[in-house]
């Protein structure tokens, strides 16, 4: 199982999804949609909220692990900003497996690339709990 790759999740991030994310998180910070405002602050364009990429990583892991698994930990470092129009490819690989009192634990390394092969998120990791066989 160690070395298994997670089925990648690919997200094309447009301004509409960025707006939807801002509304869904009650976060109306202008950095993520107001082009004039962000240029005044020295940014080239509104940029994707880094936590949204965390949402994509959660999806990557839960889709791979299945509905009986519980995401226990997720950590990520944002490296390169993502802009509207970018395609984000979320990837992962299994790095560790162990049995604990809590359940079967699987660790994964995760990362996110854009269409220019830049690392948008790196490093990232997840810890997932699977029910022990006797509990299924």
């Amino acid at each position, binding site marked *: 199982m160690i070395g298994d790759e997670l089925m990648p999740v690919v997200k094309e991030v447009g301004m509409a999804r960025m707006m939807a994310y801002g509304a869904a998180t009650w976060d109306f910070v*202008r950095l993520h949609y107001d082009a004039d405002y962000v240029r005044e602050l020295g940014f080239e364009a509104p940029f994707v*909220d*880094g936590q949204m990429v965390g*949402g994509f990583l*959660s999806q990557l892991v839960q889709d791979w692990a299945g509905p009986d698994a*519980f995401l226990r930990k997720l950590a990520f470092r944002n490296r390169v900003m993502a802009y509207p129009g970018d395609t984000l490819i979320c990837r992962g690989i299994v790095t560790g497996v162990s049995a604990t009192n809590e359940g079967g634990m699987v660790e994964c390394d995760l990362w996110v690339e854009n269409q220019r092969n830049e690392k948008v998120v790196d490093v990232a990791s997840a810890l997932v709990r699977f029910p022990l066989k006797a509990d299924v």
Partner: protein
Amino acid sequence: MSDLLDSLKKTVGQEVVFHAPEEMGKPSIRQYALAVGDFNPLYLDTEFAKTRGLRDVMAPPTLVCDTWQYIDSDIDDKGGLVGRGLAGESNGLRAGNEYEFFQPVYPDDVITAHWKVKDVYESEGRSGSLVFQVLEANFYNQRGELLARNTETMFYRAGE
């Protein structure tokens, strides 16, 4: 010591607590799932969720760490909800997050969020000196059960 580092250092140890005025609610869960584009039936289909041992749909795990819906205030001129910040400045950028999830968040959970500034430090980045601020948020439901913890690192450009 730069003025920025000096002012952010003073935030270390500051705490703020928010009590949501109502339950999380299924519409919030569905709206977040829609925004992310994550249509997992664990988050959207009550009958399916019950077959997996949940008592209702659960929120996507990162929702409780991402949302500000537990703050009952107004929008400030930078677009943040009034009172949300512990930084004193909202021009910080995200360096990263570490989430720990302890149990599913359900639609009928009423969230209490405890935010605290854990640390502030200066570090040399590619484009000069940066000041980092580490915050910790613990999220509880109405029974005082710990649902999730978010350790968040923001950075600020110094030397201007």
